[in-house]
């Protein structure tokens, strides 16, 4: 961690701490207070948007581990979310398991499915692995539709509202808090994974897999671990999404969501944990902005042209970031901070 001049680690605990300086703590506290007081002042629409952003952040953390840290680009992430979503729906609906048990199981099942589809990663990489993950999405989609007795097929399946000490989690405010606590947890876990032996191995594989292998990194094992961890995050996000809508349906997990998730990583900064949050918030807010101004713009131009902004705005943002700031918002923030810390020199 880059620290201001004069601040240095005096022991190992300080050296590995995620939050070090007073300003870090203040920033974190303000952020937490902001995030956890949103239901007190925000409208239902803002609350719904914040909940959806939270769920997307959890999913994007998973993709960031897989793609940003381990270098394996996946376009099947939405499919793994689908696995988690349906697992939760089946466990809650058919097996009668409580939400709190079903959610981690949903993550685990998605992780195991991720391992299965990650098996080709030993032999293929780059473009070919992307195609394999695309295939994974469509295979999962097809299987969900075929196992109608289990998944409800095209009609999907309703999911019962969970309880927490007698309080219905379907209450939007409480559900928001549940999602946000999990977002905090997922962010801490994602950050910590990068500091483990596995996390360093992921980065080594991403930077140069041959060199990593020569140094003794077991490529196959670590690639599968990355798939497992990334898909656990996706599964939990999928489960939360299904629970939020009280319904599981394949159309909740369109293929294009995987593409947007990748775009979020590009905008936020591939491989950066904080970048995931920046990217998700940026894309979701851009989409929301387009939705908001669409009706007003439609008075000047054709409504379809006006609403096309919801696709155009984030797409243009991705292109601009790829050209002018390929390392994303997190890197821009890092540069600003360095400049600010060195100011006026």
């Amino acid at each position, binding site marked *: 961690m880059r620290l201001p001049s004069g601040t240095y680690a005096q022991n190992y605990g300080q050296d590995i701490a995620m939050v070090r300086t007073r300003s870090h703590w203040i920033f974190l506290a303000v952020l937490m207070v902001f995030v956890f007081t949103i239901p007190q002042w925000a409208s*239902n629409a803002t609350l719904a948007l914040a909940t959806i952003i939270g769920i997307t952040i959890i999913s994007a953390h998973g993709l960031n581990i897989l793609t940003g840290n381990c270098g394996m680009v996946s376009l099947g992430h939405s499919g793994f979310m689908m696995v988690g979503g349906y697992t939760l729906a089946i466990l809650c609906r058919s097996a009668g398991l409580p939400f709190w048990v079903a959610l981690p199981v949903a993550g685990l099942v998605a992780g195991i499915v991720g391992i299965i589809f990650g098996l080709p990663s030993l032999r293929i990489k780059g473009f070919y692995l992307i195609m394999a993950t695309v295939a994974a999405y469509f295979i999962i989609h097809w299987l969900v539709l075929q196992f109608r007795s289990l998944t409800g097929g095209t009609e999907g399946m309703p999911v019962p509202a969970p309880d927490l000490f007698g309080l219905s989690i379907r209450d939007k405010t409480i559900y928001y808090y549940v999602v946000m606590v999990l977002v905090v947890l997922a962010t801490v876990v994602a950050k910590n994974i990068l500091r483990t032996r596995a996390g360093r191995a992921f980065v080594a594989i991403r930077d140069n897999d041959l060199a990593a292998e020569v140094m003794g990194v077991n490529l196959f094992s670590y690639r599968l671990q990355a798939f497992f961890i990334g898909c656990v995050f996706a599964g939990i996000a999928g489960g939360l999404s299904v629970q939020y809508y009280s319904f599981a349906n394949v*159309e909740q997990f369109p293929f294009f969501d995987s593409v947007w998730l990748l775009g979020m990583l590009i905008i936020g900064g591939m491989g950066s944990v904080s970048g995931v949050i920046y990217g998700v918030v940026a894309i979701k807010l851009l989409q929301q902005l387009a939705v908001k101004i669409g009706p007003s713009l439609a008075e000047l131009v054709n409504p379809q042209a006006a609403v096309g902004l919801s696709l155009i705005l984030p797409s243009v943002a991705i292109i601009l970031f790829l050209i002018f700031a390929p390392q994303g918002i997190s890197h821009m923030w890092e540069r600003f901070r360095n400049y600010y810390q060195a100011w006026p020199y």
Partner: protein
Amino acid sequence: MKRYWVIGLVLIVLLALPLMAACGEEETETTTTAAVTETTAGATETTAGATETTAGGETPTTVGGPVTLYLGGTFALTGAYAEDCAAVLAGFEDYTKWVNENHILAPWYTDRTIPGNITFELLWGDDALAPDKTVTIYEDLKSKGLLVERISGTPQTMALKDLLIEDQIGATCQTAAPAALLPPGNIFLKNPILTDSLAGAADWFLESWADTSRKPRVALLTADSALGRNLDIPEMYAYLEEIGYEYVGAQFVPQPATAPPTTQLSWLKENNVDLTLGAAVNPTTQPTIKEAVRLGMGPDQPYKITFCFGEPGHLQIMVPDMGAMANGTVVSGDMCAWEDKVDGVAFANMLQDTYRPNNRNTNIMYLDGIVEAMTQVEALRLASLETNPAALTSVDVLQKGFWQIKDFNTGGICANNLTYGEGDPQGIEMVRIQQVQDGKIVDLGSRPIKRNILPAAK
């Protein structure tokens, strides 16, 4: 040490907030009151959100101030349904302008007047067929005072169904997945559900089946989407076999079609299928029929087969594009044709002459927009008869509005008058069958529905 204090404080805040949110609030009725326009003209002052108007600061009155009531909802203006939904939106826009200028429900409903102090305003957002956008738009419009809702597709239906029940908001929709009726919620349909719609077409085909040596062979040829796959349920196969068909199987075509569905059509040929049933929009149905003609398949082609689609696969869009190439194609549903000499079409033409003379919308879903907007206005009007419009809530509009709509004349746009009620969101009782003959749409009559072919409750 300081670090532990901060962590402890953050943890306490994290734990306390959900509990405060859960325990501190009374169970409140999730209703929205109509927005009231704030005016300061003269001595009358109306306060936003308030239910009473104070005249001259002395005697409170409860009616008379200008009131804005909202209609609209979500429209899928991006994606496969974009063309259709843009036409629905155009219908909503024009009808809203007209009703504000004329203060009656429709030209044939001169007795159903709208009080002069009520102005309708259209609120809408593009959901792009995405459940997350649908939910945020829904919440946003609700917070602006929308007491009704409008839904455009199956994923949105599933995302909003429970919310609409919780919030006690009535929504209009052209048609929906059979699952939308499990249990019947607040989504009021003007078309039959897709299974019922196609069952009507199956009835019609069976009536003309002359070969007594074998049963007609039927298959699904439908969109590879929630819309299309709505039909792919055992209850639908069971119904078809029960009335005398041999059910062969199902083929799915990407929506919109990304390539001619040669493989799917060849499969139908190999399996000697006589009739196909499907649900798809025109970007899927048109390439399918074109490819079928190329392969020599159709009622007038060497391989005799009839293709039936449920609405929104409108012939009124297909025929102008394809002409006689679409001969024999059947569509079942609810919409009349632009050529029909009915009051509803005359009204639609008048609206277009008035509000878009140089930019006419020829998509038949324009008529759907008029009917849905009219239904929303009727629900708001009926509720306003019982409750002060300025104090209307979504519950009023649902219970005193939508549930009270009986024998509602759509000017002949729908196959029959619409009747809704509590637990009865399917307003239509007939399914209209149309076929392309010599490049023109021919009405083959209507058949009764209400079979409610629904997936078994899980």
